[in-house]
Structure formats: structure tokens, C-alpha cells
């Protein structure tokens, strides 16, 4: 069975500082990995994905994520946080083959203080 762990319920960071939101996964075979963001009173939005190739993927709003196969991690990062980045972030995984439904983590609330 596939699963995603987001070990931090909340991450607090000061505006202008770098941020990291952690994600580890478990899946049979190679993974497709995704990050989604949910702003208050808005739907889930796609941020970025890893399919294959370069382990560092870049996405929307200056976010990037690093795929680490040996650690089965896909941490979300941004060099300089903005107050407007405050939102709920979800990591998700599905395998290359077999069941195609996307499995989501429990979410991490990012709070950026001015």
C-alpha cells in the first residue's frame, strides 16, 4: 500500500527566511510525487511534481522540491518565504504502475510571520 507522511502539523517561519515542509513516502516501485497547496476558503492547487529526471523540481510561486530516493523524501522548499505563502500544504504520491489514485498526506500548515 502507498502512504505519505508529513511529520509536522505546522511550520512557522519569518518572512524572508527559507522554508522547508517535510514529506516522506512509501510506494511500490518508482513514484510520481506531487505538492498541492490549499489557501483559506479556496480549492486545492497544484504546485509541482516529480516524474523522472532531475531530482530538484521547480514549481509555481518560487517553490521547489527535492526528490531523494534513498531517503524516500520529497521535501518542499522556498529560499525566501512570503506572508502570502501561509496556507495548508499537501504532499501526494502514486506509483508508476498499478493503482493510479493519488494518496495524500495529512497536510502541513505553513505560517509565515511578517
Amino acid at each position, binding site marked *: 500500500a502507498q502512504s505519505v507522511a508529513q511529520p509536522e502539523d505546522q511550520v512557522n517561519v519569518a518572512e524572508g527566511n527559507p522554508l522547508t515542509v517535510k514529506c516522506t513516502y512509501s510506494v511500490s516501485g518508482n513514484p510520481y510525487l*506531487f505538492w498541492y497547496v490549499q489557501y483559506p476558503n479556496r480549492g486545492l492547487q497544484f504546485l509541482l511534481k516529480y*516524474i523522472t529526471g532531475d531530482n530538484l523540481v521547480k514549481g509555481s510561486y518560487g517553490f521547489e522540491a527535492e526528490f531523494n530516493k534513498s531517503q524516500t523524501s520529497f521535501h518542499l522548499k522556498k529560499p525566501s518565504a512570503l506572508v502570502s505563502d501561509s496556507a495548508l500544504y499537501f504532499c501526494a504520491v502514486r506509483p508508476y504502475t498499478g493503482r493510479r489514485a493519488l494518496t495524500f498526506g495529512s*497536510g502541513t500548515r505553513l505560517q509565515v510571520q511578517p
Partner: protein
Amino acid sequence: GAGVSQSPSNKVTEKGKDVELRCDPISGHTALYWYRQSLGQGLEFLIYFQGNSAPDKSGLPSDRFSAERTGGSVSTLTIQRTQQEDSAVYLCASSSGGQGAGSPLHFGNGTRLTVT
């Protein structure tokens, strides 16, 4: 074009009643998903439709839940004999199916179901 549309946006029902939730996916998207998000919780997978293949129903929590997708487009999620624990936001998403399983999901704004 338009995004994923869900209706109603809010639904309050009495315990024991049946409810139907509707999802209009993005035109041309072959894959459609239903998820449930309870307050403070992550997204719980319910069901997945891909083209003409048999749906993946492995996430449905009980036989009170069912879903269908007519003509490969609109989908309806039905909950029979609702219980208070069914209260949640029900999210629908669609994807183009391009790049295999790597195409991103596009989510609707959800239906907030409250069972009293």
C-alpha cells in the same frame, strides 16, 4: 475554459436522509476522483474513474457510499442513510490522463456536507 465545478457548495441534511453530490469535470479530462476532507484532516481517497475502465472503489468507507460517472463526464456521489460522521468537505478532481499517471489533478471547490 471552466474548471471543475461541484454542486451544491453547501448541503445540510438530517441524519438518515440520502444526499447526492455532483461534479462536472474539466471538458476532455478522462480521469475523475472523489476525495473527502474532514475538519483538520488530510484527504481521504474515495473513488477513481479512468475512461471506460472499471472504477477503483477501494476507498469507499461503506456500502452507503456509491458513485457513478455518466457518459464519461459528469459524476454523482451518493450517500445513503447519512450519519453524522459523514460530515466533511467532499472534493472532486479531474485530470487529463496525459503523461500517464503524472498528469496533475485539478480540484473543485468542494461540497461541504453537514449531517445534523
